């Protein structure tokens, strides 16, 4: 059964069967990644452009590796954010790339909605690698994959997304995907970082981190982006760490097993204490490997659709 859409723009509205198919396909590729020869010929002859309008190392490398493992030809196109508004317009850039006969475009952009816009001006399959504070669907998928790998299911689990929910594309993709898969989703963070009306998405809001730890099976801890505007939303890093940081004491006090995910890289001592971070090393590295498998699955399923 193929995917129901020829693009992956976000996880909003993506049917359960599609998510299931991507996760199952990723399991197969996960196995490929354990082989001595990690390459399959599946996308041979396909050309994929990684169009990155925003700095990203990990996501870009993950996509690039996934493309190489599938034997696709990939081109990296990185544009510094400062040239977005001036010079060659976005549309012209896309038309130029299109003229090079590409099959798929993986796009990262600081402005929400850009991947959707791309589908109007290009015939290629479009994969959203993060658009502004909107969605980051492959991150959502790999988080779900990691949860399923560890806890054997998603349905019925209680998952809390912790941190700067308002300025996170990871949060929205997680909320949409997890809810579709039947998880019970909540968010926890300083109230200035929780978007107004988020409850309308069927999400519970928790302001107390201890309560979040007690109530949930999984915490997906977002990175506090210290370099960005995030600092305007809480008084000090000390205060954030004190009231929302995941520490050993907090976890011990609670006593039960809880799965902690983090998209990395961790701000040690801010959202997660150094001690907890050390313990998390394995799962975070696993998330990275799973990320390659998920991206292989998405590229494969979209690339063989036509």
């Amino acid at each position, binding site marked *: 059964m193929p995917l129901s859409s020829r693009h992956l723009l976000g996880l*909003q509205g993506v049917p359960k069967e599609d998510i299931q198919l991507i996760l199952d396909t990723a399991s197969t590729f996960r196995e490929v990644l354990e082989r001595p020869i990690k390459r399959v010929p599946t996308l041979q002859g396909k050309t994929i452009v990684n169009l990155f309008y925003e700095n990203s190392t990990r996501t870009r490398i993950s996509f690039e590796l996934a493309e190489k493992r599938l034997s696709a030809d990939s081109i990296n196109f990185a544009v510094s954010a400062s040239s*977005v*508004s001036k010079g060659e*317009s*976005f*549309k012209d850039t896309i038309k130029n790339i299109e003229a090079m006969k590409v099959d798929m475009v993986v796009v990262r*952009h*600081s*402005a*929400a*909605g*850009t991947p*959707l*816009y791309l589908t109007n001006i290009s015939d290629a399959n479009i994969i959203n690698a993060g*658009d*502004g*504070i*909107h*969605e980051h669907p492959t991150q959502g998928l790999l988080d779900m994959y990691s949860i399923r790998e560890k806890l054997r299911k998603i349905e019925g689990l209680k998952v809390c997304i912790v941190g700067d929910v*308002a300025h996170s*594309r990871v949060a*929205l993709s997680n909320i949409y995907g997890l809810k579709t898969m039947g998880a019970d989703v909540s968010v926890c963070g300083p109230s200035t970082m929780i*978007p*107004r*009306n*988020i409850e*309308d*998405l069927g999400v519970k809001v928790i302001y107390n981190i201890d309560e979040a730890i007690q109530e949930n099976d999984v915490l997906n801890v977002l990175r506090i982006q210290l370099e960005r505007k995030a600092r305007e939303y809480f008084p000090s890093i000390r205060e954030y760490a004190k009231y929302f940081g995941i520490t050993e004491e907090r976890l011990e006090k609670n006593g039960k097993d809880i799965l902690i995910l983090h998209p990395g890289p961790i701000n040690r001592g801010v959202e997660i204490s150094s001690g907890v971070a050390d313990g998390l090393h394995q799962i975070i590295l696993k998330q990275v490997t799973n990320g390659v498998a998920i991206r292989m699955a998405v590229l494969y399923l979209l690339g063989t659709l036509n």
Partner: protein
Amino acid sequence: MKVILKNVSLFHPAQKIDEKGIDILLTDGVISKIGKIKAEEISGAKIFDLTNKHIVPGFFDMHVHLREPGREDEETVITGCNAAANGGFTGIACMPNTEPAIDSAEIVTFIKEKSKDHLVDVEVIGAATLDRKGEYISPMAELYEAGAVGFSDDGVAIKTAGILKRAFEYSKMYNVPIIEHCEDETLAGGAMNEGINSTMLGLPPIPSVAEELIVIRDIMLAEYTGGKIHIAHISTKKSVEMVREAKRKGIAVTSEVTPHHFTLIDDSLKSYDTNLKMNPPLRTRADIDEILLGLQDGTIDCISSDHAPHSAEEKEAEFEHAPNGITGLETQVGLALTELYHKKVITLEQLIEKMAINPRKILNLPVPSIEVGQIANFTILDLNEIFTFDISKSKSKSKNSPFDKRLLTGRAIGVINNCKLFYQDEFLIL
């Protein structure tokens, strides 16, 4: 030349005229007879059969961006006037956010000069402060003398309460209104209305309270100083409620709404179509419901387009980076008739008050009267024509409208003013 307008329905609420089957004779653009006219008695007259058409006082749009001087690639005084005539307007007021801003008498004169031979009257809103920066009040007396009929920092609210107070006090000498784009700048900067849709679309939000804070500030200062405040493009439920309350108290406040703010809601932004990006942003159903009440009960005095032409290159951008605003002169009458008159929100009488009479009253301009001896200043309406708006036929230099291909009921099919006639794409000098 002589023109006979045959068999019209004549409607002018301010003059209590409501008659059917009337003929009007125009001689060189002046009304020379109203009643039954035998065509054969008038030799050489050009006859327009206007059976089932209404003649009403010429419509006036008090919120138009002409882009000249500065962005003539987007609109000029002439192309903007052509769009206005095509949309059924005989008069417009142009806003001062040009480059340079309209903060000197020379620019007022420049615009007046450019438009002087046109069918459409162009009135000028001067900047309230120098370069619209909110630091020093503009030379309002000179601007007024050159012809400015109101003052506004347009695009932004007057920056501080201190400067606004002074602007009210100074403009009071000439009894002209301060027209405000109500938005608190510390809450501004987003791309759409704050709510569940902004969260879901990942677009930076503009809270409704950003508008409401300035509405109440302006009302309070208008009351305190005795100045006149006109709230431009009102868009939220609370703003309407506050204006209603202020009017009840007798404060000199008036307000306008744009067709897009009574027609569209923020759900439509799911397409990330930059032609739906404007400021104030599209709001919610609850806001529209209150706006409709405000139109009914007179809280909202006028319908204005906020016609804001932008080049295709600028609009063809990421949503967050695209400029705010849409064109509106040529869709306004159709949307008002479709969404307000035909849906029985307001009567034809109210519609004419809000599109022809009130805007002129607010700006202290004479309301055209339909009587023998007067220069004809009419809009000709077909209330029931069903048509599809086609942006490619627009007379504006810019095509940034979200209403392309929209089905509308009711249309302005002609205008007559300044001894010129424009009817169904035919132009005549009378």
